[in-house]
């Protein structure tokens, strides 16, 4: 491991250069993807700076301005407690980004490691892991999430767990199929012949080489995780009040006051759609750029 540091300076410089050309090419050849990436970045900035840019306190209730229509004071109106909708949407992106990135990262990573492990050992181990993954796969996503929430209770960490668990077998499936090809690579044989431990071969020699499908999965999971979090919160099984979260803002009150205060139903939904749209746009272009087989000529 120490050698990584020893030689770190130079390869990183060349890696940085390659990244730069990749990014430039990506923006030039896939403008839609670049737009998606820009919106994703914007979302991240909003999430980070929510407390700075928001006009109000997301939790402050104002009974003098309940269900107020969009106006100069409240650009996107207020909700049933007189809370500013814009503020809650801005803060809500914190929840969405946090859930989205943690779920996608943990789910894709754990899934990839399990998939690679399954492919590396093959035989009975592979068969066993595949069967277990099959079991989880045949549990519908939302039902698995429901069960996890019922077990652990609501709250941010539990929502993250509930959304991550069903993602793992999906990621494992994809990673396994790529890893099966890598398993046959001579450099994996070389690592085995060198007497390295299984864990090292799986983590250092095989996993980094399923990077392209991993990144593709990661971006696809980002949008899915945000959607799932919104669905769970909408059902009252996700993040709980008064935490600002988009799905939660649509829950109950939004439907109830749909006629009198439609802004409550429209804007949080728009926020969800826009965020997921951007992630998908970016993810799609990234997939095209990374996977030559899927590239349309």
């Amino acid at each position: 491991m120490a050698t990584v540091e020893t030689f770190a300076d130079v390869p990183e410089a060349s890696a940085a250069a390659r990244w730069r050309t990749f990014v430039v090419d990506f923006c030039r050849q896939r403008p839609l993807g670049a737009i998606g990436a820009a919106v994703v970045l914007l979302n991240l900035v909003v999430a980070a700076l929510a407390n700075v840019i928001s006009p109000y306190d997301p939790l402050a209730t104002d009974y003098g301005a309940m269900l107020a229509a969009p106006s100069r004071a409240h650009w996107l109106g207020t909700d049933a407690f007189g809370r500013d909708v814009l503020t809650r949407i801005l803060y809500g992106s914190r929840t969405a980004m946090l859930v989205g990135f943690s779920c996608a990262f943990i789910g894709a990573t754990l899934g990839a490691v399990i998939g690679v492990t399954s492919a590396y050992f093959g035989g009975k181990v592979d068969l066993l892991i595949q069967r277990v993954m099959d079991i989880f796969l045949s549990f519908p996503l939302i039902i698995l999430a429901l069960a996890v929430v019922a077990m652990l209770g609501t709250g941010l960490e539990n929502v993250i767990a509930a959304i991550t668990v069903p993602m793992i077998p999906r990621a494992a499936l994809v990673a396994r199929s790529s890893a099966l090809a890598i398993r046959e690579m001579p450099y994996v044989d070389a690592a085995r012949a060198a007497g390295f431990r299984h864990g090292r071969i799986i983590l250092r020699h095989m996993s980094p080489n399923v990077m392209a499908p991993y990144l593709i999965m990661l971006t696809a999971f980002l949008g899915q995780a945000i959607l799932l979090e919104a669905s769970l919160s909408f059902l009252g099984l996700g993040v709980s009040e008064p935490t600002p979260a988009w799905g939660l803002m649509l829950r109950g009150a939004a439907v109830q006051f749909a006629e009198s205060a439609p802004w409550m139903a429209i804007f949080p939904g728009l926020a969800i759609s826009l965020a997921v749209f951007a992630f998908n746009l970016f993810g799609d272009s990234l997939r095209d750029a990374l996977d030559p087989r899927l590239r349309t000529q």
Partner: protein
Amino acid sequence: MTKYIIKRLLLMIPTLLGVAVLIFFLMRVVPGDIVELRFSGETSGVSKETLAIERARLGLDKPLWHQFVTYMTGLARFDLGTSMWTGAPIHEEIKLRFALTLQVAIMSTIIAVLLAIPLGVLAALKQDTWVDYSVRIFSIAGLATPSFWLGILFILVLLVFFKWLPPMVYTPFWVNPWQNMLQLIWPALAVGYRYSAVATRMTRSAMLEVLREDYIRTARAKGLWQKLILTRHALKNAMLPVLTVIALEFAFLMGGLVVTEQVFNLNGLGLLFVESVAHRDYTLTQALVLLVAASFIVVNFLVDLAYAWIDPRIRFR
């Protein structure tokens, strides 16, 4: 082929068994039980004896392994038992709701196919033109729009512009088809959009794959219609992945309509599932999960069968 079918059928058993075992233990790990929940509303306090009697009635006083054996032997005889909450036989509980959910799922499938096939084919034929871009953006937006939010928007539009709301009470199709449609077309549309987005994208890439074949490339110069005719034969194979996503998405809907049903106040499987988990109704939850998992596994099996039928090499893997 027979050997392959038998092999695949046998492989389904451990998966279903795993699902059954998993949900059994998952439910027991969930804190709180049905008896506590049932009496939790009563303020006067319930005596320990009452709770114990109720537990004994439901068989919850037995050791876990005993409950497990009872459950598994019941399954072996295809006996799902009775709901712990309502006391009604589970197949009675499920029947009507299953019909409703199935109908919404079928309707959204029809909507999705009607949208996806023409749009996907068109986008592929007109690749990299504004038509293609519009279709792609339309379908990516479909993936990004939560069905439940689309449902809320539908309700909003109907309410604000037409001063009308879909009927709240479920009418079976064979009783009054018009009434039934008025109620169910909206959730079907809301779900169908997302569903069609998945299928459109698959149709487009499958078509592109076909169009890339050499003999079709030579026909590029000819008109769009000829191109379509030329690809007719190749299309059959290319449609396999499209069929796959449609089938899998359909299986997914059987358990995935939870949120949409909530929005439209539909008494379907999803709502029943949420309730049964909330009530810690072990028997009902187990039955529902098995039902949904079984439909998913069966659809998966049928898809695999279709692949093996078209491409015999798969059978040897």
